[in-house]
């Protein structure tokens, strides 16, 4: 039994979700649901048998790396891990040269995490056969995170159409924020971005988005709130005067969440700084979808790997 074929899917790489149509997005989510069920039932097929998947993580990662690796292995792929520190990368080899070397050894899909925005585009242009799966590039995109967030929200809310989603935090330095904004807006949500001016004002002209620095005002009518990770070094870099100030104005507490719709959901891409973006109590609150976000990581990455594998033979 093979995964459901999506007739509209004709992409070689997954670089971002910005150019995916609503139908394509929904189809990936549907496939994620299907694969999640099959995985739970122990009925996964070897869609990726004979396919070598390379993990090229130029930045540390836990959940993205582990879930990509499990997704690939459980679909029957051979997974090779380019451990950057112990490879020729440490000897100064360029990104393009390293990925071309991986490709020549037979790796057909490269899961790339890189600190520089746009690195996957350069990689995709430089390879002849291998597919690039962007596992996060700089402050630009994190497409599989956006897909698993969209899936989690779609299941919690029934549909994203007309839903009011508040994204709060350091959006300007967040690849998760950018990909989430693309996906949520495309799926019909009404998205509000809130946070300190320097972290959200650059998004003023983002299509379909409203930017509100005052979180308490922005929360009114929210169906879900997604907190972004605050990096302490970024805060020191001028976004907010102090973490204390951030917590006071944009930290999510149970009380603050009460300003949203009753039953509004809480999300966080992780790893969360408890006591900063959200209180420790809230992570364990029934309104929290954080656990489900993580659970959807493997099925969504399975869905993406399956789709790109089917497409691979055309290239």
């Amino acid at each position, binding site marked *: 039994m093979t995964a459901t074929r999506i007739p509209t899917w004709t992409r070689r790489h997954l670089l*971002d979700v910005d150019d995916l149509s609503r139908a394509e997005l929904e189809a990936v989510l549907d496939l994620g649901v299907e694969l999640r069920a099959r995985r739970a039932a122990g009925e996964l097929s070897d869609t990726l048998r004979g396919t070598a998947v390379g993990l090229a993580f130029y930045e540390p990662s836990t959940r993205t790396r582990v879930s990509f690796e499990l997704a690939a292995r459980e679909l029957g792929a051979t997974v090779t891990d380019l451990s950057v520190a112990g490879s020729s990368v440490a000897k100064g080899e360029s*990104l393009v040269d390293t990925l071309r070397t991986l490709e020549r050894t037979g790796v057909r899909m490269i899961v790339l995490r890189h600190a520089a925005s*746009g690195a996957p*585009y*350069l990689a995709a242009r430089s390879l002849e056969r291998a597919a690039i799966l962007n596992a996060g590039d700089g402050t630009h995109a994190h497409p599989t995170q956006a897909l698993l967030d969209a899936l989690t929200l779609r299941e919690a809310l029934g549909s994203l159409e007309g839903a009011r989603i508040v994204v709060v935090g350091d959006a300007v330095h967040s*690849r998760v924020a*950018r990909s989430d904004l693309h996906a949520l807006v495309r799926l019909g949500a009404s998205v509000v971005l809130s946070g300190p001016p320097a972290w959200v004002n*650059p998004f003023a002209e*983002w299509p379909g988005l409203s930017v509100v620095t005052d979180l308490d005002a922005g929360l009114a009518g929210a169906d879900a709130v997604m907190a972004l990770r605050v990096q302490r070094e970024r805060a020191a870099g001028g976004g907010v005067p102090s973490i204390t100030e951030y917590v006071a104005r944009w930290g999510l507490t149970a009380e603050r969440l009460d300003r949203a719709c009753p039953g509004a959901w809480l999300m966080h891409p992780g790893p969360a700084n408890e006591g900063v973006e959200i209180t420790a109590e809230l992570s364990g609150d029934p309104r929290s979808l954080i656990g489900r976000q993580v659970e959807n990581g493997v099925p969504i990455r399975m869905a993406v790997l399956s789709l790109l594998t089917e497409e691979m033979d055309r290239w």
Partner: protein
Amino acid sequence: MVMARFGSLADPSATFALAGVRVIDPATNTDAVRDLVVADGVIRNGEAPAGIPRLDAAGLVAAPGLCDLHTHLRTPGDERAETIASGMRAAAHGGFTTVCAMPNTDPPLDDPLRVRGLLANATHAAARVRVVAAATRGRAGEQLTDHGALAAAGAIGFSDDGLAVASAAVARQALSYLAPLGLPLVQHAEEPNLAAGSLMRGGPTATRLGLGGWPASAELTIIERDLALAAETGGWIHFTHLATAAGLEPIRRARASGVRVTCDVAPHHLALTDAWVAGDRRFAWENGRDPGSGWAGLDPELAYDGTCRVNPPLPTREDAMALLAALADGTLDAIATDHAPHPPERKAVPFAEAAPGLIGLETALGIGLAAVMAGHLELSTLLAALSTRPAALIGESRSLAAGSNADLVVFDPRRSWRVERSALASRSANTPLLGMDLPGVVRLTVAAGRITYDAGLIGSK
């Protein structure tokens, strides 16, 4: 490509006659179709000397030789990117007869011996080399170089280009010391704290791409500061590669109040925009009806191309249009290329790791002509901004009047050429224009009476 031949400043003086060429000479306000006769390197009135054929030049334009105030020759220290010989061939191919070499070499041009050495090595090149020396020792921004000794060695200006002279006190000291020498502080106007972490011009496209945004205030704050310092010291401040509209008004005001201020703009800041980083390849004036272009398009085939990384970064469309207008109204004195060659491995890397800069000597005229053809610049303004106006700033004269030394470019405005590696004389090909067609084919360049480039116009075809 027509068989082309490069010459040098050490060649014998040229003698030739062009019939029916359109002579545009900003020095004498001339725009007329006539014969252009050069005998022994000097422009003559009347008939060609006996035995010299009159070559048909109908449709071609002759203008004074172009003068670039801002070239990175990469010599010494980075000869893989460019050498004096290759850089000056690129100059001649682009119609330039003079280039000013910038001092951010390795080691930097902060010592009179190095300045003399560079000039001595350039006497047989295909264009004149002048030198802008480092304003501070090691370009470290702390202690002035020996401006007097460097001027005696031939320096025509002082700059830490690549970086601003960031300290207000040091900038004030330089302007004050240079005032009696009559030479400019050539300022790369960029406040380093405001520009820190930036990779492209701030705005919707930078936000869209997740690249750190460079705020226009980074340029404006240095301009405002240095205008105050120039006013106070009587020094000459020259702002190079202006890239924002915001700085223009203070420059106009200061000039009107008697401050000695001049400025130049790079061709890419007149025509290319921040949307190019997202893969757009339209000139600034071509996307007027599409203000949201930064959002609509991220072209996966072209986005994040390292050749679009340059400092100051590619401007917004509005800024580019304002800079074009400022060239027309004279606020901007000159077009200077900021020719910045790099070998491929410094550009075929993630955007944040790409070395900033693009080549410009061979594409400046073409970019300018594209703006002229689109109706955003007068041809005579373009040619003045590329030749007589910059030349005057460094004490060179340019004229096509009889009796002048022949220093000129002849180009065919009706033809275009494709920017590609094989068509470039530079050692480097780092430009996002690669693969695009530019108007204006240079047919002949004559520097100091010598033919430095001839695309089959004078020599055998």
